[in-house]
């Protein structure tokens, strides 16, 4: 029986280290990801995106809070049980592809099925088909060293998908690709979410893929929230905080500007613009 929301995080917190050196990488995050949904998580560097994804993938145990996979509480599961869960239910896609260098594209995909407990000819055929679907029919027997970055990433997607997991987690899948290949990769992930009813989370800095996401969330200082639209309070232009060249804090609120001119006008008399807003 498959639940509607394969992945749910409840009050998940991760603290690294202790004492004076304690770093709270993720703080009280609640999140529900539904089938068919592509969720994009954005945020500045060091905000805890990777940590969050690692916990969602059951590779790291939260300091507090609960990760539910298909409605099952993973908190009290043993490492072995978590391994089993990952074998079948979670597919990973990484920034640096992480293919096994001694294996061909097809073997890389097949290993994923082997780990899920499946062997034999049917497995090979399924792996081949999975690569074909991603346009890699001619590259099946190539080792990763002979593949381009985009091809490697598609192999890794095939590897993540072939076992038909409910959840696909991708950390910066486009970071090592040029913008066209990067977009293609996200389109593939989007098609997977929509077409095959998977819960897909993509973590990325890449704003060009925002429009492909069903939902975008913003993680900052370990806290996750719905992505706010920031506007330049002077000219009203939509500003992407991660790329804003100008910002200033007034009464504890950070404002972003399109250019120096707007910032200067705001600084002269903030209230004039805030009242108007």
């Amino acid at each position, binding site marked *: 029986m498959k639940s509607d929301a394969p992945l749910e995080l409840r009050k998940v917190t991760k603290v690294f280290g202790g004492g004076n050196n304690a770093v709270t990488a993720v703080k009280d995050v609640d999140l529900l990801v539904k089938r068919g949904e592509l969720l994009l998580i954005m945020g500045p560097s060091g905000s805890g995106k*990777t940590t969050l994804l690692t916990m969602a993938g059951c590779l790291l145990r939260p300091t507090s809070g609960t990760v539910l996979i298909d409605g099952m509480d993973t908190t009290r599961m043993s490492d072995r049980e978590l391994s089993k869960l*990952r*074998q079948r239910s979670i597919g990973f896609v990484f920034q640096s592809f992480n293919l096994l260098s*001694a294996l061909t594209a097809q073997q890389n995909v097949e290993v994923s099925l082997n780990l899920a407990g499946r062997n034999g000819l049917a497995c090979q055929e399924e792996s081949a088909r999975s690569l074909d679907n991603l346009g890699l029919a001619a590259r099946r027997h190539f080792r990763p060293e002979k593949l381009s970055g985009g091809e490697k990433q598609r192999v890794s997607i095939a590897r993540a998908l072939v076992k038909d997991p409910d959840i696909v987690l991708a950390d910066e899948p486009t970071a090592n690709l040029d913008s066209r290949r990067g977009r293609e990769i996200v389109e593939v992930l989007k098609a997977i979410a929509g077409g095959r009813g998977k819960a897909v989370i993509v973590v990325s800095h890449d704003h060009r893929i925002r429009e492909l996401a069903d939902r975008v969330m913003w993680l900052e200082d370990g806290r996750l929230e719905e992505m706010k639209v920031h506007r330049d309070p002077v000219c009203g232009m939509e500003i992407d905080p991660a790329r804003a060249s100008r910002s200033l804090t007034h009464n504890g609120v950070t404002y972003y500007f399109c250019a120096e001119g707007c910032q200067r006008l705001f600084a002269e008399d903030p209230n004039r613009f805030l009242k108007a807003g």
Partner: protein
Amino acid sequence: MVNIARHNLFADKGRLFISVGGVAFAVLLISILVGLYQGWSRAVTLYVHSAGADVWVRQYGTADMFHSTSFMPASTADRIRQLPGVKQATPFLGRTANLTVGTKQVMAYLVGYDSNDGLGGPVRMSSGSAAVRPGEVIVDRSLASSNDVKLGQTVQVLGKPLKVVGISDGGNMMIYSFAFIAREDAEDLLRLKGVANFYLLKVESPPQRNDVIQSVNLQVAGADALSVEDFAEVNRGFIDGTFLPIIMVLIFIGFGVGVAVIGLTIYAATMEKSREFGVLKAMGATNGMLYRVVLQQALVAAVLGYVLGALLTIAVAATAGRASPMFVISLTPAAMAGISAVAILMSLAASFVPVNRLVRIDPAIVFRS
């Protein structure tokens, strides 16, 4: 199922070559040592077994043929011959002595033997005659080939010129070999008139052997009778006592070299692939699955190394045997099986550290670049 171990192993041919070469070298070293040991043991006991006696009698309180000097008077033989069941008691005269070939001194174990008795002669003849008469000598093939001795040639034995009438085989004892002279010559040259070092007994029927041994021991003062098997064992004991400890040390070193080479290469391979092992863990592989990959890599390297090492051993044994008859390398199938087990053991020992490193690989590293 994709065989990750095999692909990993063969993807890096240079490293595979080093691990296989390391095991092969260790196997070669161990096989040659075991082979030499077995060769020596065999050579030492071969003569005792083929001397034709059912029972060997030594002086009470002495040990083997090579290290202790057993002397018994002729009267001992007379007493023995009167015992029931004894068919024949032939004196054995023998000790090491120098042969002079040209200007060269060569050590040999000189045996005085009477071909009419049929006891105590060469294991087998390579050429010439086994019937050695006074003034004649039979030398072993190993002595003949390394000193270029031919039939009809004269060699000096304890100052007396003797004509080589036969070349025997099976008497190579590494350090020296057996040479045979007529019993009369031996009595004279070895100063053993009226004395014998051992008596070689034939019994009337095999079932009487134990009774004969018992009655010699009980009734003949100063005589100690042993079955041919026991006496062979006593002589083999001398190899065990002197060479076995040295051989064991060398085998241990060989084992260590093998473990170190596979260990280091497998360790390096595991460390280099630790990220990939992390990926496998992330994908749901358990530690057990990863152990198997590493163990299999080590095992395959060990098996290939064993095969290569065994082939090298055959080549080296053949070449060394031809180059110098001193090298009698004889390997029984059981010894080869034992060495293969040692190679497997090497790979298991070598995997210990890398396998332990696998446990510590955190799958969360896969998200860090």
